[in-house]
């Protein structure tokens, strides 16, 4: 028993004297609880919707006002033709379109019934259902208020329609996210581990005392992983098409090119991580905690960003994965071309160049 106590005491000493283990034991759980607490929410908040009002009468105006007054929705724009609905969704900001039929008020008074189409972007099936339900409940609420006053039962019939993912398959949501994570994992983590391994084994010393230029070492390290990541991406896309029957509506070429761009940005991040890690363990920890976790939580892959508090939303802007997922979903599920995603692509390109520049500058040509 005494031996056991002595051993346990020693273990406590080790834990409390190692800054890294302290951070993992206490720092990380707090960070994670905060992140998860704020990020995971099924509520929606100020979701952008568009209005297609064929009637433009007093009733529709009232309903629209009610919707805009609620904190769940924010009216992004009014469109005047059905033909424009597709374009609005492709742009990506608007998550739902409310389509009021012609002669809405007249129909209510004459036939005691009118319909509103609730068209939601179901590339994120969870929030699509939620949006639909919330609109519904606002409508119900309005009906109740009106019917109380008038003593006749008007019925507003909502017609929900889910576009891009009518069966609300969750795999449509997961595949782009998983692809992002795997590419990030293979590229960033493996690159950073490979470079730090040379440091740990001591072979880095010999490479430095040689005519090899720093950029030759960096590119040499990164090259195999570009190929491997591309193969991974191809395998994932094939699997999702043939096993999960996921559509790829847009151009495969565009998909490939943007994927390569993202891979390069992840590789640059990997090199950056290797410049701040002395050991493979550190590199792995930073890759997992510093990359994987924010990507899963803050990229909009599972939890919608618009529902998160503002500080988290701002942070999500600097995560390359967020932009890549928007592009991926756009190309695969909505079939958009470059004209709709040029902004996101440009941002991703800018980030990539920034990371490459930073890691080249930080790459040490000496041991200190």
């Amino acid at each position, binding site marked *: 028993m*005494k*031996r056991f*106590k*002595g*051993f346990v*005491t*020693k273990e406590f*000493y*080790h834990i409390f*004297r*190692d800054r890294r283990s302290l951070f993992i034991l206490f720092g990380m759980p707090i960070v994670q609880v905060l992140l998860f607490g704020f990020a995971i929410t099924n509520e929606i908040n100020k979701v952008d919707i568009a209005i297609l009002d064929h009637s433009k009468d007093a009733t529709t105006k009232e309903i629209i006002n009610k919707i805009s007054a609620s904190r769940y929705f924010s009216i992004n724009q009014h469109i005047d033709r059905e033909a424009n609905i597709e374009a609005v969704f492709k742009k990506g900001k608007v998550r739902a379109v409310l389509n009021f039929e012609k002669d809405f008020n007249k129909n209510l008074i004459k036939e005691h019934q009118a319909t509103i189409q609730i068209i939601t972007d179901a590339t994120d099936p969870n929030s699509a259902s939620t949006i639909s339900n919330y609109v519904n409940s606002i409508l119900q609420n309005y009906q109740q208020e009106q019917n109380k006053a008038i003593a006749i039962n008007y019925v507003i019939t909502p017609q929900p329609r889910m576009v891009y993912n009518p069966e609300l398959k969750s795999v449509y949501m997961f595949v782009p996210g998983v692809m992002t994570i795997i590419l990030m994992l293979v590229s960033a983590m493996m690159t950073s581990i490979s470079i730090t391994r040379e440091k740990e084994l001591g072979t880095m010393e010999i490479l430095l005392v040689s005519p090899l230029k720093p950029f030759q070492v960096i590119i040499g390290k990164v090259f195999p992983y570009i190929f491997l990541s591309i193969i991974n991406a191809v395998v994932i896309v094939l699997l999702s098409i043939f096993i999960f029957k996921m559509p790829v509506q847009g151009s495969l070429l565009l998909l490939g090119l943007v994927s390569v761009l993202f891979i390069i940005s992840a590789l640059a991040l990997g090199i950056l991580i290797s410049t701040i890690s002395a050991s493979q363990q550190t590199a792995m920890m930073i890759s997992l905690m510093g990359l994987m976790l924010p990507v899963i939580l803050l990229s909009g892959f599972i939890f919608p960003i618009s529902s998160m508090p503002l500080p988290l939303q701002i942070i999500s802007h600097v995560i390359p994965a967020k932009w890549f997922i928007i592009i991926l979903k756009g190309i695969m599920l909505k079939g958009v071309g470059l004209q709709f995603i040029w902004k996101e692509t440009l941002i991703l390109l800018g980030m990539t160049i920034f990371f490459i520049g930073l890691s080249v500058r930080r790459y040490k040509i000496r041991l200190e």
Partner: protein
Amino acid sequence: MKKTNVIQAVGLTKMFGDFMAVNAITFDVKKGEIFGFLGANGAGKTTAMKMLIGISTPTSGSAQVAGFDVFTQAENIKKNIGYMSQKFALYDDLTVKENITFFGGIYGLSKVRIKEKTKELIEDLGLKEVSDQLIGSLPLGWKQKISFSVALLHEPKIVFLDEPTGGVDPITRRQFWELIYRASHQGTTIFVTTHYMDEAEYCDRVSIMVNGKIEALDTPKKLKKQFNVDSMNDVFLKLARG
């Protein structure tokens, strides 16, 4: 007065698959002796030593250490010996006192005894000012002297030292060996491996392993005469080169 054997090995063998790492070695070590166990890297020294300290089961042959059988009583052996190796001796992130307390506890010493021994050790090695410092902050030579003393905390019959003086300056090395002499004088048997051939000369008897077999076993003086050379270094070269 006949000295008793604290280690007795007969035909001790260890095989890894087809490879015979230790080939039927036979030898004994007397109480209070300083026994040098030499050999090139890969000659089988470390494997042999692992069998004697009870952490590796021999393939065949027999051996008794401190009166216990290496096959059936390995746990008892571990309780009755001390061990120190160059690669690891003490915990860098614990203080001198904490290390002594920990190892004392592991060896089953009572709290009172640990306190006594701690005081003894600190006075003996002159560590009063650094007793609450982390081991990692002390120079290599001090670490080695402390680990040797820690290996003796529970007053074992035999102490096994695996290349204990690597890299240390010549003065500290000799101070370390003076500790060894004193322990031997007090009746502790010392089983030591080393690459410093001059340290081989400090031993009462030396054995040299080549390719798994013991090719020489005698006092340094007699070995030098046998091979007609002046130093243990030359004995080794003659044997290993063949």
